[in-house]
């Protein structure tokens, strides 16, 4: 006789049909919740599995070292990889310092009213659809100057700034007050306190935010559609012209009826998704280590 059965003997409510009904509801709800979670995990497995299954057979050395195919021959993604790397790197260099400064202003200097104004503003900027940001840069710069990977990087930077700034600001506010007070009490000026005490303490969290933003922006297609999409499929490092990128390549290949193109699209998607997943794992690792060090200290 199990413990549960013994308890039920003395449970005066056990026999009531009402309670039985309520327990049945509880079981049903739990089942629905478990199934929903399983469903989400299954979706992830399904998408990742399909990309892996359809993409892996295309991937070889040539795929990474050759530019896109012109006609007939089997091409690669070298040109798109270079373009994506350059554009994302430029976007990161543009966005991260600005984002960190904004976060410092909000967390260290602004009064409560100004802080909440800039916070809301960052969230609203984060909610502007990526394609609208593309149109904005198109209207500001591409009209008149022509497409350029620098403009693409600027569009991506606009998407990155609110992500990095919000992540940084939240982490800055977690830095214990007493660290700042100790530094100020020792006569350090405010800016030195921020620069040599607050930022180093928060660096793990800031890095996590940057890495996640890079991962997200690397997969963005819409802003590049207007700023860096009309390209020659050859290897080029010239950032003044439009460069091919991985997301745009996948987008154009996916709309092609040719099975070869579709196969190349899957392989390119596999490379992109592998990059995004690795970046997310890196972010998780940094975040985990940082939390441990904060808890330990």
């Amino acid at each position, binding site marked *: 006789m199990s413990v549960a059965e013994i308890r039920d003997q003395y449970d005066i409510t056990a026999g009531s049909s009402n309670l039985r009904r*309520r*327990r049945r509801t*509880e079981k049903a*709800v*739990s089942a*629905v*919740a*478990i*199934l929903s*979670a399983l469903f*989400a*995990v299954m979706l*992830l497995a399904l*998408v*990742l599995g399909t990309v892996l299954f359809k993409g892996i057979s295309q991937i070889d050395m040539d795929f990474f070292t050759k530019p896109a195919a012109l006609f007939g021959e089997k091409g690669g993604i070298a040109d798109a990889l270079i373009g994506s790397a350059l554009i994302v790197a430029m976007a990161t260099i543009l966005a991260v310092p*600005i984002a960190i*400064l*904004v976060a410092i*202003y*909000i967390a*260290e*200097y*602004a009064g409560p009213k100004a802080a909440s104004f800039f916070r*809301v*503003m960052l*969230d*609203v*900027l984060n*909610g*502007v*659809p990526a*394609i*609208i*940001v593309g*149109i*904005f840069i198109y*209207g*500001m710069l591409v009209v008149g100057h022509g497409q350029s990977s620098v403009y693409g990087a600027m569009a991506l930077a606009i998407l990155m*700034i609110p992500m990095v*700034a919000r992540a940084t600001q939240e982490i800055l506010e977690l830095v214990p007050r007493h660290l700042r007070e100790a530094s100020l009490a020792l*006569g350090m000026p*405010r800016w030195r306190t921020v620069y040599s005490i607050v930022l180093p303490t928060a660096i793990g969290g800031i890095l996590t935010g940057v890495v996640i933003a890079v*991962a*997200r922006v690397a*997969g963005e*297609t819409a802003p590049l*559609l*207007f700023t860096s999409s*009309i390209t020659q499929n050859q290897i080029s490092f010239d950032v003044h012209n439009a460069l091919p990128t991985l*997301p745009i390549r996948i*987008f154009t290949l*996916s*709309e092609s009826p040719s099975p070869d193109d*579709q196969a190349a*699209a899957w392989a390119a*998607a596999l490379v992109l998704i592998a990059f*995004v*997943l690795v970046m*997310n794992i890196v972010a*998780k690792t940094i975040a985990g280590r940082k939390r441990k060090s904060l808890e330990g200290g």
Partner: protein
Amino acid sequence: MSTVTPDPLAPAPIDRQGIRFGDVLFKGVALVAAIGVAAVLGSIAYKVFALAWPAIQEFGLSFIWTQGWNPNANVYGALVFIYGTVVTSVIALLLATPLSIAIALFLTEIAPGRVAAPIATMVELLAAIPSVVLGLWGILVFGPCVASHLEPFLNTWFGFLPIFSGDPSQAGVLPAALVLTIMIIPITSAICRELFSRVPRDLSDGSLALGSTRWEAIRRVAIPYAAPGISAAVLLGLGRAFGEAIAVTQVIGAGNTINQSLFPPGDTLGSRIASSYIGASSAIEAQSLLYLGAILLVISLVTNVSAQLIVNRFQKARRVSAG
């Protein structure tokens, strides 16, 4: 006062001017950055409207309720795309909200920590899949699967409903709505999870101690407590769904008409801009596409700002009740 002997242990005189200058400079630079970002937001709104202005003047507000898009006949109207945007996003939300709440309940109330953590990570990773990859999957795998299995099934059993009537189609409103569902599940479920984990322990414990089952504690305590936050989560998901252009372009099929059925192709504001802007054949077509962009911007700003307002009020109320 002037007779104080110099103290050998006194700190070196501090360069107050230097400190003041460094602080002012640093604060100034940070403030300029913050104002600059605010200015970017403002100029995005200004620029999109300025670019669309010729079309706004040409067609006026009636553009919004004009149906049809035919560059050859110089007919431009946004109704088809507004309809497509609203229908795909609302379907996505109707499916994603209950699922997200259920996932969040599983992660916070049912699963033990060892199980919850990896599953939460996997749901988060769903949000990390680039939309163009999801669109690729949608156009080549999911769309055909919907057309050959789901749509015939819906048509056989629910064909009496006009939304499930007609012939299945590989590209259409239904697969677009389902792809959007996949994209917003991680967003809404992450927020809901956070909300449920913040429900004060003593409230739910109190409910359990009074004899309610776990589900009753969730339904009567946790969900009402989290309700304003859940509605904000729903709005944020909606904002994301409105603005998604790439994946939708790939699966929706660029239709030019409003159909009762969800099976045939349609189009949304974002997806029409993404698919037609580069190939726009005349200035007025390009400006009309920008008019669509302006409408999209207004819709998503309104959605997002309302979500922010709800979140802010919710936080304020909680702070008051906590203090």
